[in-house]
């Protein structure tokens, strides 16, 4: 009933609220017409609500008590007009408001997503994926809830309350004062209700979470539970959790169960007051019977809006909190970006890493003063202990980050001065594990270049030697990769990933060699595909296998953020330095088991 609850940390103050509203209005500008129309319709509709009882009052006082058939007719005709107006304006209101609101949400989703995509890797390192996703989903969903229902109700109730008070005051201020006796009780109860209901709701949400995770654990661990004959204990533990959820639910029901009677009593008690005191005034000739009828019929418009508003308050507030977080994300600055006047990188060229130092954020440098030149067509293997900085070096070459100090050039052009488009065409990184997107194999390869034709994709798959393997699947290249039953193995994912690189046909390939074991069937295929892909290209490979390092033209050893050795395999082994040591542990490791 009051879906939106507000976490204590999500409270927004008046200044925040003002900023959020102003900014939302700015973003609403494309929908100005719809917004203005919505406002017109909502006013027309809301005004029509208490006009009805007013016409009944007029009919009674002028028509019936005044025995004037014409006046009665006028009241009826007026009522018909009001009814039609209310119907039409309500209908239009729903449409115009939805158009504006849903349009706003659509723009917000797209804008936020585009912004997310432009943010740098540094940003992604600092923020948890789950939180970023929830900005785009749950935060915007609370807004959608507001757009579909809350906002319209909120505005309507505010207007109705204000308008009813004005009308009642004009008709009889004495009777209005009588009604207002109950108002403080209603307001106090509403404030308490809102607070209690919010707390109860948060508690329920918490309990639902606990119950579901206990449920999930019981289902995921059912084999162990049965193996140890612990079914009864687990059932008992679940029942306790479930019972706590029930209690939380009942607490929130209790909050409603005392609040509703207060509202009901305010309405009916006021009715009694109006009839008693108002009737007495009528007998004394101070007011008319029509006025009493009007008040009895309009009383609902006084207390119900207060009740509704107290329930809507949470929805509005949590939507505001969501919007605030969304705006904060939109305001995050983008740091790695294309400079004005950027030029395309040359087709081929040497890579020169010149005195590069790099630190993630403000942390201690991960790389210190690294210099190295990789000739076009050369194959360089980077080795070293985990955490030494070898993959950071590779990431800098692919410009996932910009160096803190020093520079990296490709064919003489500083990466920071090159266009991002040309950068992605010249340099491709193949990650350790193939990451697949929802969609078919074909679509997954096309990620690399979305203008590629089917033929080009097939050629790329052939180039890494896996076309037949995928084409022979029942649905061929149109096999959905994530659907149940047709999931690809780790090796097959890697093959898709390699085909992507082939599709781009880059001058420089950065390979992060897989450390995890692949299924024996595809292991060989992956190695073959890598070999084909490396042919004729400049290659930087982060090597985890001795054989890979052995095959490279040169081997660079990275330790503690520095490039400590750089030479051919044979020379390095002969030198008895770091590499020689690594080499012997590696060999030892293989024979130890």
């Amino acid at each position, binding site marked *: 009933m009051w879906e939106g609850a507000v976490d204590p940390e999500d409270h927004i103050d008046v200044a925040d609220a003002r900023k959020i509203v102003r900014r939302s209005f700015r973003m609403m500008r494309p929908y100005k017409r719809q917004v203005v129309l919505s406002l017109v319709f909502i006013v027309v509709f809301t005004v029509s609500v208490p006009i009805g009882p007013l016409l009944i009052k007029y009919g009674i006082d002028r028509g019936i008590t005044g025995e004037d058939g014409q006046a009665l007719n006028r009241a009826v005709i007026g009522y018909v007009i009001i*009814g039609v107006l209310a119907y039409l304006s309500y209908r239009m209101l729903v449409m115009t408001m939805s158009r504006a609101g849903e349009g706003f949400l659509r723009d917000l989703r797209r804008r936020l997503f585009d912004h997310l995509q432009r943010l740098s890797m540094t940003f992604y390192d600092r923020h948890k994926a789950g939180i970023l996703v929830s900005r785009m989903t749950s935060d915007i969903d609370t807004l959608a809830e507001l757009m579909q229902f809350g906002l319209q109700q909120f505005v309507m109730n505010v207007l109705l309350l204000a308008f009813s008070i004005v009308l009642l005051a004009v008709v009889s201020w004495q009777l209005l004062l009588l009604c207002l006796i109950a108002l403080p009780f209603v307001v106090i109860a509403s404030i308490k209700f809102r607070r209690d209901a919010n707390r109860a709701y948060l508690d329920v949400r918490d309990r639902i979470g606990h119950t579901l995770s206990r449920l999930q654990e019981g289902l995921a661990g059912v084999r*162990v539970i049965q193996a140890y004959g612990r079914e009864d204990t687990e059932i008992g533990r679940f029942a306790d959790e479930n019972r706590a959820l029930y209690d939380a639910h009942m607490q929130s029901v209790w909050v409603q169960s005392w609040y*509703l009677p207060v509202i009901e009593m305010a309405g009916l008690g006021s009715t009694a007051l109006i*009839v008693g005191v108002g009737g007495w005034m009528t007998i004394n000739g101070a007011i008319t019977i029509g006025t009493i009828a009007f008040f*009895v019929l309009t009383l609902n418009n006084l207390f119900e809006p207060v009740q509704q508003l107290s329930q809507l308050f949470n929805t509005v507030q949590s939507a505001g909190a969501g919007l605030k977080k969304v705006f904060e994300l939109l305001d995050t600055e983008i740091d790695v970006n294309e400079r004005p006047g950027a030029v395309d990188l040359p087709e081929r060229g040497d890579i020169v890493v010149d005195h590069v130092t790099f630190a993630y954020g403000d942390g201690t440098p991960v790389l210190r003063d690294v210099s190295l030149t990789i000739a076009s067509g050369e194959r360089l293997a980077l080795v070293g202990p985990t955490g030494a900085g070898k993959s950071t070096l590779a990431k800098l070459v692919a410009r996932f980050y910009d160096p803190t100090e020093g520079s990296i050039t490709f064919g003489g052009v500083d990466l920071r001065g090159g266009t991002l488009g040309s950068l992605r065409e010249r340099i491709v990184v193949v990650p350790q594990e193939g990451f697949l997107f929802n969609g078919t194999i074909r679509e997954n390869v096309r990620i690399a270049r979305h203008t590629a034709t089917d033929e080009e994709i097939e050629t790329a798959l052939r180039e890494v030697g896996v076309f037949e393997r995928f084409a022979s699947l029942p649905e061929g290249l149109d096999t959905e990769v994530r659907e149940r039953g047709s999931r690809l193995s780790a090796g097959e994912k890697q093959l898709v990933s390699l085909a992507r690189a082939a599709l781009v046909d880059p001058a420089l390939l950065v390979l992060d060699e897989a450390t995890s074991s692949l299924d024996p069937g595809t292991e060989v295929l992956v190695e073959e595909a890598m070999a084909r892909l490396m042919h004729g290209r400049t290659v930087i490979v982060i090597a985890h296998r001795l054989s890979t390092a052995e095959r490279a033209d040169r081997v660079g050893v990275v330790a503690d953020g520095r490039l400590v050795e750089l030479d051919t395999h044979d020379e390095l082994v002969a030198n008895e330095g770091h590499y020689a040591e690594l080499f012997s542990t590696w060999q030892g490791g293989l024979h130890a088991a």
Partner: protein
Amino acid sequence: MPIRRGSPSPEGWRLIRRALREQRAGIAVGVAAGIVWAIAKASVPLLVQEAIDNGITPKDTAVLWRWTAAIFVSGVVAALFTGVRRYSAFRESRLVEAKLRDAVFAHTQRLHFAYHDHQQTGELMSRANTDLFQIQNFVVLIPLTISNFITVVFVTGVLLFIDPVLTVLALGSLPLLNYLGKRFSTKLHPSVMAIQRESAELATVVEETVSGVRVVKGFGSQAAQSQRLTKEANDIYDVSMEAARVRARYLPAMDLLPTVGFIFVLGYGGYQVLNGGLLLGEMVAFTAYIGLLIWPLRMLGMIIAQSQRAAASAQRVHEVLSTDSEITSPRAPTPLPRKGTAKLGAVSFDDVVFRYRGGVDAAVLDHLDLRVEPGESVALVGATGSGKSTVARLLPRFYDVESGRVRLDGLDVRQLDLLQLRRAIGIVFEDTFLFSATIADNIAFADPLAKDDAIERAARLSGAHDFIVDLPDGYATEIGERGFSLSGGQRQRIAIARAILADPRVLILDDATSSVDPTKEHEIRDALTEVMHNRTTIVIAHRPATIALADRVVLLGEGKVLVEGTHDELLQTSASYRAVLAAAEAYDAERARHEDEDEHELEGTFT
């Protein structure tokens, strides 16, 4: 609710009826409170009318005060009982929900392994969550609907008594409210579902773009991703506008209908008053009554739509609850021979044939014969798919054989009490599952009453004690989803401790040390030697060092015993044994390096 013949969810309805019958006392209270509320609330306009016609119009102040007092009393009663009605309606519906949730959970806990193999956890979760929510949503409406129905009947009766013609005019359009309410609910539901579906699709795009950000950026495919997102955002817009159109069509119409009644009362009723056929107070009462009927009639429409959804949900819940476990204790189980009488723990497989899905899959065990003497330890070795893990799963009767027999201490496992059988066997799975609880609780899983020193002893034997005492809270450290996360090897050692604590007569280690760092494995090996001493043990392993622990090695292939003997014998005589070990070794070496890599996420990898 009326149950139509040929209703699409007959068992669903039966389930709901049974649940309602159980709560009948509470629901009766809710209904009674609802009736009191309905009468008190519906009498107010009547009392107002009396006050106007007998007090105000004849200018009789005493009568006016009397009726005013009556309105006030009605107000108190109505207010009180609206609270009672709501509280009891929700209490009963939440009870129905909670009881069903307990039942679903308890039932799934007892269902056989094969059921869980083919059932997704998410599916079962939504049975116990969203489906029960639909049922609760319906049950809560029942007492509310009954009192609403009574309100409608009562009001109609009163109005008919005052002026039948005006009643027809005033209320004539209102049944449409009920109809529109139902139509609205039915029409809106698919749109609401579509919005949820489209939102989930958008969430998928966002999720994979964020988690695959390195790929997206690496290939500069932001534009393509933006296109996908735009498509999803447009889809959400379209279905949301569809929902808006439904609301625009029905909500204003439902709002308009009472107005029609008001207009008739004012027009026709007004002239009746002028002509002296109706009292003014009666006319005012009519208008008040129309206002009173708006919500009850709308809700009557809603409950019909909700009942259909609830029945469909109940049908799904029923499907879970009506699935019988295929593996249960026999009615008259034979007790296992007691401990201490003779050497216990003899295991035998006689001509066992087994396949995971009868009739569909190929046989995993194909006429397997295997005998393990009491106290003996046997290593099962074989390539993937050789059936070695299946052997481990048949002994505790996680599955039943298709033909042949599995025996423990000479008794067919199907003759034994299931709990007794499983308590007699300790099994450690390859993928260890630990619960969100303390380490001590996890080790004492088989025996929650176990003493601290017994827990510690088990942990020492499994080589877990040393790292446990180094944890922030030692044995009281919370692990699992919300707790401390352990490495694969640590988890396995806790799982082994769990099995040791159960003190089973047969211990099964299914690749139980695969994640343990080879350099630390010797510690566990020493401990295991002690545990295995005088205990029947079946070890499924591929590391020569672990295999060497066993008295005898059995090489399985294609569901049969290929060859058996000691490790050394097989190494010398069997080429296929050497091939299996070599393949496993290569696999292990790779994996060990991967594990090592995992523990150093400092630098991050390209993923």
